[in-house]
């Protein structure tokens, strides 16, 4: 019996102790009419050898490609040690650290993670993570509305990831919170602070500010943050953690800094793996910490005055406050955060800066080469980080299909998300791409368009 250690002798002895004749008898409190027939929809069990063959076959079908898609999930090199340590049984198979004394490993690691993320985002405190970037943004919106107290409206620019906007809408609409989308400048690909200044938006709890935005363009974060604050609203930054090695962190935007920073943690050592598991990060200024959802770890001392770590501020949480909790969230994405913490330790401040700089430079190089192809041009004039939106002289879906035949996933077709932008492709080149990769992409695209 797979994963069940009982021998016939064990079963007999155990039933005798219980005073039952059969295992079936242990289910005698379940009304007979509810008992199921055989599970015909489940295939018979496989051996480990058989499932290995099956999964190798399935993985083989998916193959390997040169990936130039970004759009919220980014290919970065992951040092070998990251997942070798992360999948140690003591991290992999442990539970939420409710028993602090038996969970000091996970708790200290989470405290270190919180410290790293607080510094990276320029904030005072970070929680121990959310499900992903999109849900972290939704929770930040809820947090802003709770803290604001008078307005139930959130402003989200259309330069924020379109799926993030969908997720935010799905989650906050349950609480009758209104989401207002802000248009962007179609020439520069940014939200223009001057057009916001002219707008009549007055009553709102928060402005969401992406950096870089979904098009890879850098927003004028200082002016946007100050504008939100001038309207007595919170500023929520949605940021790429790799980019923060080079860019002003949200905590330092404008004159007072953004109030909440969230984002997708995947670039920090998490493989692309078809979309998950990733983790969302959330950090904020210290005066908002009691409104923050999710697990938070604090440093304290034990009976001998020795340093130790515990889950703290649990009075915000569902297992204590039930219907009055800040969120229904129970878990964080613990194992992903384990990987991210080890990643950040291995890479260090200089490594992260080099990864960000190389990704930026590679994307600039790729754009330069692609713009030499007739009819290919950047659609937006705003400065970019490691992603660019390009107009193609042909329908993007057809072009991508040709690139795929040459083993290249050439980027994301923006048409389904922004039909008004025409034949626009979103392309990304991180530090994993070599000069030869970039040249190969340019030549293949040129050929596909000819």
């Amino acid at each position, binding site marked *: 019996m797979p994963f069940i250690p009982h021998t016939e002798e064990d079963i007999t002895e155990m039933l005798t102790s219980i005073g039952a004749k059969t295992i079936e008898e242990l289910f005698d409190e379940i009304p007979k009419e509810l008992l199921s027939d055989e599970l015909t929809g489940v295939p018979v069990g496989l051996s480990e050898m058989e499932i290995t063959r099956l999964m190798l076959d399935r993985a083989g079908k998916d193959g390997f490609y040169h990936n130039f898609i970004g759009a919220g999930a980014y290919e970065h090199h992951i040092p070998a040690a990251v997942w070798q340590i992360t999948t140690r049984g003591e991290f992999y198979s442990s539970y939420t650290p409710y028993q602090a004394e038996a969970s000091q490993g996970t708790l200290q690691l989470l405290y270190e993670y919180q410290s790293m993320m607080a510094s990276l985002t320029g904030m005072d405190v970070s929680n121990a993570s959310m499900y992903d970037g999109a849900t972290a943004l939704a929770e930040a919106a809820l947090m802003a509305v709770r803290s604001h107290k008078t307005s139930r409206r959130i402003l989200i620019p259309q330069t924020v990831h379109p799926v993030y906007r969908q997720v935010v809408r799905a989650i906050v609409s349950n609480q009758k919170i209104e989401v207002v989308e802000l248009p962007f400048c179609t020439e520069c690909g940014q939200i223009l602070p001057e057009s916001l200044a002219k707008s009549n938006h007055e009553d709102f709890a928060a402005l969401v500010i992406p950096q870089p935005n979904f098009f890879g363009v850098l927003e004028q974060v200082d002016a946007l943050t100050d504008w939100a604050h001038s309207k007595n609203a919170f500023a929520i930054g949605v940021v790429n953690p790799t980019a923060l090695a080079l860019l002003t962190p949200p905590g330092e935007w404008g004159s007072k800094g953004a109030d909440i920073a969230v984002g997708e943690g995947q670039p920090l050592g998490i493989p692309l793996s*078809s979309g998950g598991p990733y983790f969302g990060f959330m950090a904020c200024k210290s005066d908002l910490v009691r409104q923050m959802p999710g*697990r938070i770890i604090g440093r304290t001392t*034990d009976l001998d005055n020795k340093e130790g770590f515990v889950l703290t501020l649990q009075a915000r949480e569902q297992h204590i406050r*039930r219907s009055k909790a800040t969120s229904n969230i129970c878990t964080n994405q*613990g194992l992903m955060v384990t990987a991210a913490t080890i990643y950040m330790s291995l890479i260090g401040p200089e490594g992260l800066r080099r990864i960000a*700089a190389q990704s930026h430079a590679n994307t600039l190089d790729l754009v330069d080469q692609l713009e030499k192809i007739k009819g290919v041009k950047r659609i937006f004039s705003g*400065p970019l980080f490691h992603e660019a939106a390009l107009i193609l002289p042909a329908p993007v879906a057809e072009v991508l299909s040709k690139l795929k035949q040459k083993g290249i996933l050439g980027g994301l077709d923006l048409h389904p998300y922004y039909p008004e932008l025409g034949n626009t492709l979103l392309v990304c080149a991180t530090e994993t791409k070599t000069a030869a990769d970039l040249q190969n992409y340019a030549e293949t695209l040129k050929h596909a368009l000819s």
Partner: protein
Amino acid sequence: MLIFEHSRKGRRNYSQSPATTASKSQIPQNLLRKSPVLLPEVSEMDTVRHYTRLSQKNFSIDTEFYPLGSCTMKYNPRACNSLAMLPQFLSRHPLAPEDTGQGFLACLYELQEILKSVTGMAGVSLTPMAGAQGELIGVMMIRAYHESRGDFARTEIIVPDAAHGTNPATAVMCGFKVVEIATDKDGNVDLNALKAAVGPQTAGLMLTNPSTLGVFEKNVAEMSRVVHQAGGLLYYDGANLNAVLGKVKPGDMGFDVIHINLHKTFSTPHGGGGPGSAPVGVAERLLPFMPIPIVTKEGDAYRWVTEKDKPQSIGRLSAHMGNAGVLLRAYIYVRLLGMDGMHRISEFATLNANYLMAELRKAGFEIAYPNRRASHEFIVTLKDIKDKTGVTAMNLAKRLLDKGYHAPTTYFPLLVPECLLIEPAETESKETLDAFVKSMKEILQEIEQQPDMVKGAPHTMPVRKLDDVKAARELDLAWKSPA
């Protein structure tokens, strides 16, 4: 020692990031970072040693028995991890075309079908990233269903007082008012209280069955009739599905929507608190409202079901496809178990729980519901012991750590005083259970002879009892560089 305290300025790992800093840059000066990033500057060996040592300060299933009630801490088979981490799966971008992910999509499609079969539901969506998110999505579908019928008067969700805290928190997050109903002396939901609570304002009832008291709700069919007659829907919290897998299908009990904790019943790792995964299953009438994406099969090809196919969907609740890698692990697990493995899970989980309950009763512990069968878990109450000796359930829990066992769930459910909720999963052997009983007996003796020693537990952990009050009052949530 924190990783930051190992840091030395200028130390770094040269082979894991680009050899030089690219000089080409288009970032405007005013957007450039001026403050340093406080990441540690340590060698690869420092990092590996530091985190290996930290891991050794954890209890885990791989190292200790973990009878944590309502959490189903079963063994996580190694094959599930190694095969889900095949390089093609890891390197696949979530927005890559469907035809470059047919192997991955096939696994997800088959997992949906298997979960439909074992739960008796008409449809399954794999997107929820944890139990609490499964609940949120389930309750959102209940709301969408009522509203689609023009019924906006249903503003209440009924929750038994024994429910997980996530149930009432979820209902509120969905904009509902929570109505709590009581439990009777045998651990069943009070049927009369339920009958009194339902009405045209009832959106639904959230129920865990077997309940968190470790017993099967015998009246579930009657409860289902009561709620449905009032026009409400039934939500099944699948936290305890492990107890009845292959025996009873939530669909047959009358539930309209369920979530399944893959990190419990289907053995995906708990990972120190996530990632979880909690697919939702729905009855026929909720099919139009399911969250996307879902995988469908057309001929031999698999593709995503999107907004276009399901215009009434409650939408997307994750940026991509939920916790995709966790889904692969669950898929591998169900294929290893197969048809017969399903009901064996609940049979041996139930055998282990009832055996442990019988042995602990013989050892002198008071069982909270002594006249009931245990499901896959049961409750010991230390009320008498606390009254006589002052030793609490938490003291005993901490003393168990000293004996090399993770503590059972303490002080949950809230309605049993000084409770320990004990769940020995099916993967534990009789010898492990016997050794646990022996340790519990020793602690009983210690409580009589040296109550203060027990109250001061734990004594052998990396730290002694930690000061929670200080942690909350003098908040220290991030390391700061000593200036």
